[in-house]
């Protein structure tokens, strides 16, 4: 066996390995539960990531981890066609070796073109992961490296081949391309076909019992176009809320919502319903959001961007965290901490009491129907699309 052929086969197997673990992690979430994910260059040998904060978890929960999200719950994981492409590369590499076609220019040229696909995709996904998400996912990096090595090896195989005959390449390309399409389509269509039916969960997770906002505690946020009324329960220093906002924006469904925020800080300095402060400084930050009123979107965006900084400062001194906010928004200085805004924040919490809401964030109620907690990440596009269309499922599954 030629060295470049061996290298190509090893790269294809490694790609299969990493893409396989990535797909497996994604598919495990189809049970709507929370799972550890593999996040290692030797997945399966090291313990899974349980922190939910690793680059692999961030990437998996991001809008870029799957496609066709509005059609299939969670979407089709992008790693699944990746897995299929590596399986195809392995097939082509083995076929070329066993049928002694390493000197066949037509076969090696196609191999280069086929290997270029995952390499180009890796460039795009790597950019999204590192630049857009700011996350380094070890499984993904394994896939990227496998892709680039496979392409380099394919180029090496072609360069070392002695044959020059390209007659009939068009026909061979067409047939081989069709094989490749089949390799991708068969597992993807199978995935879509055997995925469980999730429609029965939509609209079955509760509703607002007393949606009237007599005390005007709900704060308009986001686009206020002619969308459907929605109440979003969130904490400006909650990482999950930040992630939810990103997914909602990426889904493109935000424009169909007329959102109002119910500020619900998970900080026991103002919220008696939480025994331990999960997000230090969240009460102060919530007051800042309420003080901003019509400018709330800007304060929320800043809070999301500086969550770690504010929480860290507040964990030792809330005044220091407040100074960060006031430095950015000096007009809020006299309002934060005032009796009026404390009272308004308290009324916000009491709205949650009146509606007997679960003590967690984020939550989204569309026309008073709750988006299930299990649908706030991977299943967001699927469930929200149906909730907006009024396609609610059976209440039996509540």
């Amino acid at each position, binding site marked *: 066996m030629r060295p470049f052929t061996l290298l190509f086969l090893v790269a294809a197997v490694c790609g299969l390995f990493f893409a396989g673990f990535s797909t497996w992690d994604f598919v495990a979430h189809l049970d709507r539960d929370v799972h550890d994910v593999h996040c290692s260059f030797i997945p399966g040998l090291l313990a899974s990531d349980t922190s939910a904060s690793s680059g692999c978890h961030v990437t998996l929960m991001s809008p870029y981890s799957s496609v066709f999200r509005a059609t299939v719950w969670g979407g089709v994981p992008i790693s699944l066609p990746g897995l299929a492409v590596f399986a195809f590369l392995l097939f082509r590499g083995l076929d070329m070796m066993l049928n002694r076609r390493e000197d066949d220019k037509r076969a090696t040229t196609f191999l280069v073109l086929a290997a270029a696909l995952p390499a180009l995709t890796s460039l795009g996904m790597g950019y999204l992961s590192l630049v857009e998400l700011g996350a380094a996912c070890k499984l993904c990096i394994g896939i990227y490296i496998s892709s680039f090595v496979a392409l380099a090896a394919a180029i090496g195989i072609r360069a070392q081949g002695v044959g020059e005959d390209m007659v009939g390449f068009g026909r061979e390309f067409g047939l081989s391309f069709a094989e490749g399409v089949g390799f991708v389509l068969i*597992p993807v269509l199978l995935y879509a076909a055997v995925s469980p039916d999730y429609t029965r969960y939509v609209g079955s997770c509760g509703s607002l019992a007393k949606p009237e906002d007599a005390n005007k505690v709900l704060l308009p946020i986001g686009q206020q176009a002619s969308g459907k009324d929605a109440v979003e329960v969130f904490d400006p220093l909650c990482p999950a809320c930040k992630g939810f906002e990103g997914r909602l924006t990426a889904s493109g469904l935000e424009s169909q919502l007329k959102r109002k925020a119910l500020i619900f800080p998970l900080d026991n300095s103002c919220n008696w319903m939480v025994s331990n402060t999960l997000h230090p400084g969240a009460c102060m930050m919530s007051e800042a959001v309420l003080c901003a009123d019509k400018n709330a979107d800007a304060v929320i965006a800043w809070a999301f961007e500086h969550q770690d900084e504010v929480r860290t400062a507040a964990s030792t001194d809330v005044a220091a965290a407040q100074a960060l906010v006031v430095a950015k928004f000096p007009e809020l200085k006299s309002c934060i901490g005032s009796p009026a805004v404390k009272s308004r924040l308290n*009324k916000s919490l*009491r709205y949650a009491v009146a509606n007997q809401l679960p003590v967690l964030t984020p939550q989204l109620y569309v026309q008073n129907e709750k988006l299930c907690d299990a649908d706030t990440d991977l299943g967001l596009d699927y469930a929200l699309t149906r909730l907006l269309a009024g396609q609610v499922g059976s209440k039996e599954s509540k």
Partner: protein
Amino acid sequence: MNATVHAGLAVACLAIPTALVGIGVGNASAQLAANEASASEQPQVAVAAAADEGYCSADLKKVLRRVLQSCGLLSSGEVRGCQPLEAKSVATLAGDDFNALFLPLAERAGILQFDKESSELDAGDLAMLDRIFADQRGASYFFVVSRSSPEGSEVFNRKLSEERGKAVLSHLQATFKDQDLNKEVGILWLGEEFAQLDQEFCSWQRSGDSGACQSQDLNRSAFVAWIDCRL
């Protein structure tokens, strides 16, 4: 090219992603069904509720409920305030025992001290009242217990304590514009003849001259506090 080898390899390699999808989705579906079946055994998320602090004993709640019902808080809100004799009868307590009900609220309560024969809230009173009222937390009821010192007639003092209680309510209504105010704020005007505050309350946060704490200073007052009990 050996077509058999080609086809065999294709099937074998295609089996990898296909099998992974079949097994993975099958496992997830089975887990989904198992989760649904055991949904009632899963730990439930806490539900938002009003505060119910440790000092809210059954006995305290019983007395509070009587007082609140008598004073209109647990009804439509049409009745506002209690007559001193009513308070005494519904509480069925001696004055000292009645005051003892509020001792656990030392950190939550304040005493607004008025000038003699006055029901006007000065700047210090207003600042303290706003601060205490804004710090509702999970409390459901705000008590205003207004009193008068014993100088003057009973009738005058009863009227004066009523005006003091209503001055507090008027300020809260004007300042906080809270739609729930009528369901939350209860006033008892006790005049001079029931549950006068003793020196024990001198250490509580008070408006006015913090150095002066004679009996008449303490009782020309409105005692204000959120009650962290669910009834």
